[in-house]
């Protein structure tokens, strides 16, 4: 496995990585610490396992799952997804801006990411409150157990994501820091929250 130092050697300080698909294509690289991808793959596999357990439980009592699933608010789910996709877009812009040394723009986009993440957080809490208000809790039935479990474990990833974004903002803040590697590593973590949610959305809200 290559280290961050190798990446640093490939792209020394000051050289802008042009990844716009032009003719001057640099060597292939992993954004951020390759180490973060170990986390991404490990978590991705763990979630595949959770999803599999969910689908198998579902196929054992399909009617119960469908009946409870009808109580979810599909539009809220779509809204959640759109917001998280927007946050991923913003963090990708932030990384690109930092790469081009336009740190003002990078910082703005990082704050935009935080904002979208916060909107997701609030809408998730409101959604839970609404479900609980209707009497659907963690122990109501098997569907709601999985619903609260998957959304909550994702929510914990989101909360850690705020710490991770804070690290990125801290890096961007002062000219003394601004490690492109750390910023890209943080972005990779944030995208993980996004792509896991895309799957959770399809499995909890859409599938039948």
């Amino acid at each position, binding site marked *: 496995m290559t280290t961050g130092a190798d990446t640093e050697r490939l792209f020394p300080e000051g050289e802008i990585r042009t990844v716009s698909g032009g003719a001057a294509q640099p060597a292939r690289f992993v954004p951020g610490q390759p180490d*973060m991808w*170990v*986390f991404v793959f*490990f978590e991705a596999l*763990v979630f595949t396992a959770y999803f599999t*357990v969910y689908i198998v439980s579902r196929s054992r009592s399909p009617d119960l799952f469908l009946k409870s699933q009808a109580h979810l608010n599909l539009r809220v789910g779509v809204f959640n997804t759109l917001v998280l996709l927007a946050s991923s877009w913003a963090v990708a812009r932030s990384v690109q801006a930092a790469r081009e040394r336009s740190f003002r723009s990078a910082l703005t986009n990082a704050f935009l990411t935080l904002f979208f993440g916060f909107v997701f957080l609030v809408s998730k809490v409101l959604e839970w409150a609404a479900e609980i208000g209707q009497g659907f809790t963690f122990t109501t039935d098997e569907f709601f*157990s999985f619903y609260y479990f998957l959304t909550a474990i994702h929510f914990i990833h989101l909360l*850690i994501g705020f710490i991770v974004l804070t690290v990125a903002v801290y890096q961007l803040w002062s000219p003394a820091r601004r490690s492109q590697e750390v910023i890209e590593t943080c972005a990779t973590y944030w995208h993980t929250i996004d792509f896991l949610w895309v799957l959770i959305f399809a499995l909890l809200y859409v599938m039948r």
Partner: protein
Amino acid sequence: MSASAMGNVPEEPPGSLLRRIAWHWRYDEKRELWIGWWTLVVFYNLYGLLFFVITRTQPPPEPSLGSSEVVEWFADRRHGLVYGYAIVFIVGGATAIMNATLAYSMRRMSVSRAFAYSYLVIYALATLPGMLIMGVACTVGAMRPDRDPELMRWLYDFAFLSFEGTMGVFLVGSLVWMLAVLLDENGVFPKWFGYLNLCNALTEVVVAPAWIFKSGAFAWNGTIAWWINMGVFVTYTIVFLTLLRRMILREDFGTGPLPDLSPGRAPAPSGLLKAAR
């Protein structure tokens, strides 16, 4: 292996395991680390054997058993429980030297000593919910098969919930280790191991529903609360044993003087050893 300060060190002899062990005991400067590492390896294997084969308490039985079924459960494995946990009680203290070795890895890092100390204390505490309380509850249950069945079920719940439901120590312990690895600049462990600690911590959270459900994926024997969690934990353990071994192999004590001996009896320790101390 580096040469000893004593001067001429004979080559590691070929031949029987016992002779090689004797050589390492006599000349290997990393013997303290190897004692810790081998204790870890032997202990985890023994742990698997005792819990899965001898006591047959893992994979865990169903939480939904009726009290008469619990009485049968205890009767079925009476000798396994009593003798198996007796061995657990004897070797349980070995965790002290294991955790000391893991804490030492944090002392090698460029981080505050607070990390090593926190880890040491957290995992010293972890032996209680990790195995000892369960062992006591199972032994007491197995001792008197004629006990009131409702109390037998209380002991059964006590055993499995103390074992599975108290993951906070492992959660915080993993986070402490994660932070130490990520902050470290000495490269004691690769950064990805830091992130793997986070994965392990996240699966410890997932066990909490065992306090709420008596059946299904989230119960103490459930696919999510037990099987996936155990899979992650076993992977994590194998990874850190391998990385710890690499750390010990890399460790270079050289021929330098011993660290921190009483004044007047030894020269001042070299920088590297100071770092190791």
